[in-house]
């Protein structure tokens, strides 16, 4: 899974800690989300996408391998 979180976070000049505080998670969670290592709940994905003013499908990019 790839994400655009880092790119959009930079656009809105937010640090990982700031985004984590806003969506109510730990900083590590945002770090693993950015690396595409953590598969978030729909609720967290929605919160992050709202905060970064985009949609879930724009934020998280799934490839065929990820869906197997």
């Amino acid at each position, binding site marked *: 899974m790839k994400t655009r979180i880092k790119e959009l976070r930079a656009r809105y000049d937010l640090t990982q800690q700031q985004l984590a505080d806003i969506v*109510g998670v*730990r*900083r590590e*969670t945002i770090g693993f989300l950015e690396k595409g*290592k*953590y*598969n*978030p709940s729909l609720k*967290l994905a929605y919160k992050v996408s709202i905060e970064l003013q985009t949609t879930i499908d724009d934020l998280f990019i799934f490839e065929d391998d990820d869906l197997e």
Partner: protein
Amino acid sequence: MSANMPKKYRNRILAGTLILLAGIFVEIFMELDQAISISLVTMGTILILFGILYALRYGEGPVQDEWSRKIGSISLSYSWVITFFVLTGMFWVNYFEILSLDVNSVIGIVFFAMIITANLFQFYFKRKGDVE
């Protein structure tokens, strides 16, 4: 205590200090079993240390979130399964009289198997980022 410290940790440290002082008071001024004062001092010290540690590490942020809860619960599940296998192994070892295990040994092995495997799985999954 810092004025910026979150209230929940400040209260925890305050409670710990009161319990610690109660333990010292009991030890010095009251003729009670020493186990009571030792328990109070230990409880107070743990509350103070964890209060400070959590305040420094997490601050205003959450101690747990969906990522840490997911990893924690899956790690405990795996730990439970491994402990079950360890118990099964101990049963057969005892049954065939390969080793003679007393109750204390069994409790000790189960205790450490649970703690060690749960922490190892948590460590592994936290480094990996997810449980999948």
